[in-house]
Structure formats: structure tokens, C-alpha cells
């Protein structure tokens, strides 16, 4: 086996895992703290890509686009939370699923109306383009390394935020006992808006940084969303640590599975069977993994505290 | 079936608990708990809030599995048995926080356990509303607990006391020989409590009962023996008189004033 390909695909998988983590972190925070199932989280991914991409094109600088995207997504996220989602906190999960499903339709169509059906191409600045040698005779795209670095930085930041800051403590208090925290004077609605805003920024960041590779497209959020849900289900709802581990594992298995499964299958099956089963199985692989994990741990690897 | 017979026609069984331990994270809710209930006995379990009484009931009914220890029911080890299996063996429980089917009528609430007792429910055709094998016994049971007039009222619309009565009826409808009653008198006024005391009194001998209660009048009126639980540990077991006079128990729970509810 070519070790270059192996390492490359591992890194690609890791990078996919980072994107999934950014999505899953926001999702798991919102679900863990506000008990809100938000299918429209994928729409935030898409909005980040389009809005951030547009900002990048307007200012002529990708970096500036990323920086400006952050407050933009914060505002957009909080606006969505205050108008559409507030009423859903008191509702049961089915209502939340249905209402946010309706929101997806709305956002996809609104995006089509504003930017047209073709999507948006966001080019990379020259200094981020190209590849670099990372040792062992492997060259790897600079930008993908940047994505990984950004993701790890965000993971660290979240860890510090939730674990070590006052806001983080408020978040954790709100998570474990909303009513009590409210009675103690914590402004729960404001807290929820902030949490949702953070989730929106994370999703928008994920959408924007993947755009130079995949382009911004209508409906791009939905496929990532389902994977993100798989990640938080595997990782355990409400757990950022679980989301990180599950995201990386998911990304790596999915990517490497697609590359190497048919090779692996050749060890057991005749050539043409392996050739047709390969792609089919590899797209199913991550769901098989999820089913297997849930079979033994129905609440994920790091279940919420107090669960039985 | 004229009297509150033990519907299963079984002999009242014994219950033996040895060294039961259950911990939740850092909290040991049940701490090396042992007790014995003789056949036909009404054994009360009392203790302050947080003593682990409901945890004990959950462990005995199968809702929770212990970390260590053994439960023997009518001579049979049921420690690893699932909750539904324990019910089939004759062990029924009632819930402290009323656990009924709010959208069903009182009659339908009781029809379900009757149905459960009659075997499997893989019957897809006959409407239950027209099945006399379910409606007749259910109506009778409702009469017996005093809810005969209210059979067709939606359970969620019943008065609180009536819902507690329904709670007992559901437990009885499975045809048990052993009753695990978790604060059946919770929230009841004095008249209703008195009625329930009389009802349970009539069951003694035919059923073995473990009664968790805060209502000391009821406990001392009904119990053959009493176990006192504090922080998951048994601090005393004995007859009502022995318990009443036990200094440790008075210090921990009863106080020197024994009238009405305990602290």
C-alpha cells in the first residue's frame, strides 16, 4: 500500500472531521443546552458560505471575508433565534423538527432568489493556494492544513470558553438546570441567544472555509447536517468532547473508507463484486458505524450527565 | 370473584433482599441494604426524604438494576430479571408520582394490565372495547377501589385522589401476589387516606406488601413490621412498637412528636 496515499487520505479525513466538528459543536451546544432540534443548522452552514463568500468577493480578500463573516453570522443567527426559534423551546421535538424543516425550505429558496441557482465561486488567495512538503516525501495542500489548524484552534477555544470562562459557566448552569439558573438571575433568553449565535458562527465558519474547495451551493448544508447529527448521536448529545472525537473518527472513516474499501474488499471478493460493492458500502460505512455504536451505547459515547 | 382475592390464586410469597447496593456517580442511594418480608406480611419502609426509598422500590420492581446484592422472591432469585418478567412472577408496584395513562379512560387504564395478565398481546383483530374478558374484570376492579362510577372518565380528568385509587387498581389488575406500594397516600386528605388504609388492611394475608410511606398514622395502623432507611442504609427493623421506641429512629426521623406526618 502506498503510504503517501494513506497519509494523504487520512489527513483529508481529518480535515473533513474538522468541518464536521464545527457543525456538530454548534448543534450539540444548542441541543444540549436549549433542548432544541434544529434541522436548519445546515442552512446556517450555507448562509455562512454565501454571505461570507460575498463579503470576500466584495472586499477582494478571503481573509477579510472570514473575519467579517463572524459578526455577520452572529447577527443573523441571533435574529433567526429571536424571530423563528424562540417559540419552539417550549414545544416537543417533533414540532421542532417540522418547524425547522419548513425553515430549510425557506432558506434554500431565499438563497436561490438572492444569489441565483448557480451558486457562488470563492477563489483562494494566492498565498493559501498550492502545496507544501510535510515530510515523508508527501506534499499536501496548504489550505487543507489551514483548515485543520483553524479547527483545532476553535476546539481549544471552545474548551476554554465552556470550561474556564464565566459565560461557559453560565452555559453549563443553564444546561443542567434551566429553571434554577433562571431563578438565580441568569438571563436565560439572552443566554440562549448567545449560545445560538455561537453555533451560527461555527456553522458559518465551516461553510465558508470549505467553499474554496467545494463552492457555495444551494442545499449544501443538508448533507453535512445529517453527518453532523450522526456525529452528535455517536458522541453523545451535549458533549463537545464527544463531538470532537466522533467528528474526527467519522471524517477519517468516511474518507478512508471511500478510498480504500474496494482495495480491502478485493481480499475477500472477486474483482467485479468488489468493484460494485465498494462504492455502495463505503457510502453506507459511516451509518453502519453509527448503528453499531448505538447498539451498544444507545446514548452515544459520552452521554449527557444524569442519563440512565 | 366477590372479594379482593389474590387474583392469581397464588400463595402470598416472601421477599428477601441481601446486601443491595446502588450508586449514581458519587451518590450511594442504596447502601448495603438487607431486609426480609414474610409471606402475607405488610412491611413498611419509612425514612426521611432522600433516604432512597423510591430507589429501593425501583430496584425491587426491576426499573433499576443493582450494582451488587441479591433479591429473592418466593424462593427465586430475581436480581437479573427484567421488570415485565417480575410482574409475570407476581410482583406489582404502584408509583409515588401518579403514573397512569392520562388519555385513556379509567376503564381502559385497568383493561391494559388485565390484558397483560392474560398472556401475550399479539392479537390484531378484536376491538378491546368489545372484549368482555377485559372489560368485565376491569369494571369489577374499579368497583372494588371505589371508582366504579368513574369508569368512563378520561384518567387525566379524574380528581387527584381518584387518580391515586386508579394507580392502585392498575397494580392490582396484573394479578399479583406481592404489592410494592410507593407512597400510595401521597397528597391524599385524611378521609381518603383512611379509606385506603381500610382497603389495604383488607388485603393483608392474601397479598404480601411492602409499603413505603410518610403518613405515620397509616404506617402504624397497617404495618406488621417496619424498616427505617436513612441515606440508603437500614438503621432499624422491627415491630411498630420497637421502632416507635428506638432512640436512633426518633433522633433521625420520628422526632419526639409522633402525631401526623413525620418531618
Amino acid at each position, binding site marked *: 500500500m502506498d503510504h503517501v496515499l494513506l497519509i494523504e487520505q487520512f489527513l483529508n479525513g481529518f480535515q473533513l472531521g474538522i468541518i464536521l466538528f464545527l457543525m456538530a459543536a454548534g448543534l450539540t451546544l444548542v441541543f444540549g443546552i436549549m433542548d432544541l432540534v434544529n434541522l436548519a443548522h445546515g442552512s446556517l452552514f450555507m448562509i455562512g458560505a454565501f454571505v461570507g463568500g460575498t463579503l470576500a468577493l466584495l472586499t477582494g480578500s478571503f481573509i477579510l471575508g472570514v473575519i467579517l463573516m463572524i459578526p455577520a453570522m452572529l447577527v443573523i443567527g441571533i435574529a433567526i433565534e429571536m424571530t*423563528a426559534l424562540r*417559540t419552539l423551546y417550549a414545544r416537543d*421535538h*417533533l*414540532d421542532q*423538527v*417540522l418547524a425547522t*424543516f*419548513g425553515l*430549510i*425550505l*425557506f432558506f434554500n*429558496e*431565499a438563497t436561490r*432568489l438572492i444569489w441565483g441557482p448557480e451558486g457562488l465561486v470563492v477563489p483562494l488567495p494566492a498565498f493559501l493556494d498550492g502545496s507544501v512538503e510535510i515530510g515523508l516525501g508527501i506534499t499536501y495542500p496548504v489550505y487543507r492544513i489551514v483548515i485543520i489548524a483553524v479547527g483545532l484552534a476553535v476546539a481549544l477555544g471552545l474548551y476554554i470558553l465552556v470550561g474556564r470562562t464565566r459565560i461557559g459557566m453560565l452555559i453549563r448552569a443553564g444546561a443542567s438546570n434551566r429553571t434554577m439558573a433562571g431563578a438565580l438571575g441568569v438571563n436565560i433568553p439572552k443566554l440562549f441567544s448567545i449560545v445560538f449565535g455561537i453555533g451560527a458562527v461555527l456553522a458559518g465558519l465551516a461553510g465558508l472555509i470549505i467553499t474554496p474547495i467545494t463552492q457555495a451551493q444551494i442545499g449544501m448544508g*443538508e448533507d453535512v447536517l*445529517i453527518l453532523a*447529527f*450522526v456525529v452528535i*448521536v455517536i458522541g453523545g*448529545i451535549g458533549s463537545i468532547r464527544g463531538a470532537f472525537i466522533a467528528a474526527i473518527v467519522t471524517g477519517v472513516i468516511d474518507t478512508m473508507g471511500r478510498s480504500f474499501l474496494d482495495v480491502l474488499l478485493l481480499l475477500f471478493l472477486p474483482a467485479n463484486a468488489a468493484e*460494485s460493492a465498494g*462504492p*455502495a458500502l463505503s*457510502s*453506507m460505512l459511516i451509518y453502519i458505524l453509527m*448503528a453499531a455504536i*448505538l447498539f451498544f451505547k*444507545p*446514548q452515544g459515547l459520552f452521554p449527557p450527565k444524569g442519563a440512565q | 370473584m366477590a372479594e379482593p382475592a389474590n387474583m392469581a390464586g397464588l400463595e402470598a410469597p416472601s421477599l428477601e433482599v441481601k446486601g443491595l447496593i446502588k450508586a449514581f456517580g458519587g451518590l450511594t442511594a442504596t447502601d448495603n441494604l438487607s431486609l426480609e418480608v414474610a409471606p402475607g406480611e405488610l412491611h413498611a419502609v419509612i425514612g426521611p426524604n432522600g433516604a432512597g426509598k423510591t430507589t429501593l422500590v425501583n430496584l425491587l*420492581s426491576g*426499573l433499576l438494576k443493582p450494582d451488587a446484592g441479591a433479591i429473592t422472591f418466593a424462593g427465586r432469585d430475581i436480581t437479573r430479571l*427484567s421488570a*415485565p*418478567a417480575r*410482574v409475570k412472577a407476581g410482583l*406489582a408496584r404502584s408509583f409515588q408520582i401518579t*403514573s*397512569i*395513562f*392520562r388519555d*385513556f379512560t379509567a376503564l381502559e387504564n385497568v*383493561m*391494559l394490565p388485565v*390484558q*397483560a395478565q392474560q398472556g401475550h*398481546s*399479539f*392479537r*390484531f*383483530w*378484536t*376491538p*378491546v*372495547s368489545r*372484549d368482555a374478558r*377485559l372489560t368485565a374484570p376491569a369494571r369489577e376492579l374499579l368497583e372494588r377501589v371505589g371508582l366504579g362510577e368513574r369508569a368512563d372518565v378520561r384518567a387525566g380528568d379524574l380528581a387527584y385522589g381518584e387518580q391515586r385509587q386508579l394507580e392502585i387498581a*392498575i397494580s392490582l*389488575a*396484573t394479578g399479583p401476589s406481592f404489592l410494592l406500594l410507593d407512597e400510595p397516600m401521597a397528597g391524599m386528605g385524611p378521609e381518603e387516606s383512611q379509606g385506603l388504609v381500610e382497603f389495604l388492611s383488607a388485603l393483608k394475608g392474601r397479598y404480601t406488601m411492602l409499603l413505603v410511606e410518610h403518613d405515620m398514622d397509616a404506617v402504624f395502623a397497617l404495618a406488621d413490621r417496619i424498616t427505617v432507611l436513612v441515606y440508603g442504609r437500614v438503621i432499624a427493623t422491627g415491630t411498630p412498637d420497637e421502632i416507635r421506641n428506638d432512640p436512633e429512629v426518633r433522633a433521625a426521623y420520628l422526632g419526639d412528636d409522633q402525631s401526623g406526618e413525620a418531618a
Partner: protein
Amino acid sequence: MSALTCLRNPANAFTALVLLVFATGPVVMPLIGEPFYVIVFARIMVWAIAAVSLNLIMGYGGLISFGHAVYLGLGGYAVGILAFHGVTSGWAQLAVAIGASAAVALVFGAISLRTRGVYFIMITLALAQMIYFLAVSAEQYGSDDGLNILSRSDFGLAFYDLNDQATLYYTVFAVLLASVGVSARLVGSRFGAVLRAAKSNDTRVQAVGVATYRYRLTAFVIAGVMCGIAGFLQANLESFVSPDMMSWPRAGELIFMVVLGGMSTLFGPVTGAFVFLMVSDTLAEWTIHWHIIFGPLLVLVVLFARGGIAGLLNRKSANG
């Protein structure tokens, strides 16, 4: 209660109207110069059958399956794949449709039912995605573009030929009525009592001695098979099957139809499918951007009309 008194209830009246429209469609629609609607009604009825099957586990059982559309696909591909290989026997195709749906429902149900709440919703979604991607990756059977089905299922009976539009239409109608009938029987039976009680208070059901898992699994399989049969009919109707029929937006729409009509009512899924599809078809004719109206409309329904059409109409009748 006589039929006429029944009809005084607005919800029932609406249901009767919808059924009347379905029953007389092939005759009345061509007469008023709108023959296209016959196909529309047939399509709606197929979705209604799928919605009835979902209502069984969701409305009555409390199991919110976001992967139920997968059985439409299984039934459809049973027809498509067999026809592709020259097997046009309706008996064989139907048998495979039922068998595949039952097998998949058994496996998926066994896994999913070990979870609760939102985990259940997500895992049913993810498992359905698996099958969706399987279909997309099947190059031989058209993958994304779908599979054309060149001939209708052949049951080898002289008097019963699905190539006759009326026969196909009324077969769908009959299956729709039968599925509601089966639903009614199941819900009222001992089996249904366990299912409904478990939705209301699962702990209590276990505490009276019923292991609810096996009953839920059985309901899951029954619902899957019913939906698979709907898929079989859909393939015959459209002469086409594609992975899109199993996509998760379809699954979401199916849930919506059930909720819209009124969950845990017998005919709710039928009226729900009717209204949902008529509204979306009409909106789609006005503008290609109809989702921008439809999306918020769905949100409003969830927020303000939670009991669905049945709930709305019943409230009106209760208020005089």
C-alpha cells in the same frame, strides 16, 4: 350513531368529501375537462397509503420515524429491478416488495427501537440515508437518474390488468381503504392498546408486565410493509423509480402529511396527504419559488394548528 350524524362533525365531513373526490375522480374529472387530475389523485392516494402506515407507528405509537420514505423506495425498486431483469410478474414483484420491506423494517426497527426521543429520529434518518446512498451508487439501475419501468406489473389474470388506467386507479383506491381498515382494526385491538399505552407511558406498560419492545418492532414491520406496498403501486403509477423517492425531504414531507391531517386519527393521514399535495402542487404552479411560501406555511401550521386539520375542524364543531 347514524352515518348522517357522523357527517355533522366537520372533520368527518371533510374526510367524506375527500374520499368522494377520490372515488369519483376518474369519472368526474374528464367530464369537467381536467383529466390530468386523475393522475394527481392517484399519486395523492399512494402518498396517503404511506401516510396511513406512518401514522400507525407515529400517531398511535409515538415513534417519529424520519426514515419511513425508504419503504416507498424499496417497494418501487422491487418492481423496477425485477422488471429490469425481465421479471414482470406482479406476484413476484409484490412478494419481493413485501419481503424486502419486512426485512429492512425488522433490522432497522431492531436497531432504532433501542433508542428514544431525538436519538430515534436521527437514527431512523441515518439508516434510511444508507439505503438512499445504496440506490444512488447502483449505476446499473440508473443511480441518481432513476430507473424507467417499461411495463406494469403483470398478475397474469385476464380480468385484472394494471395497464388499464381505471383498474390501476381503483386498485390504489381499494388499497387505501384497506389500509385504513387494517389500521382501524389494529389500533382497536389488544396489540393497538399496548402500542397506544406505550406511547402515553412506556414505563407504566413495562410495570404492568408488558415488554413493549417486541410490540413496537412488530408495528414497525407492519408499517414498513404497508408502505412498501404503496411503493409498489407508485412504481406502477409512475413507471419510474428513483432514489429521490427515499430522500429525507420526502420523509419529512410524509411526517408533515400525517401531522397536517391530525396525528392519531384514522383518516388524518388521508386528508393530510390530500391537502399537503394539493397546496404544494397549486403553489408550484404559481411560482417556481413556491418553497419560500410553503416553508413558512409549514412553520405556521406547526405553531398554530398542531392538531392538524382534524384538530381545527373539531374545535370549530365544539364551539358550535
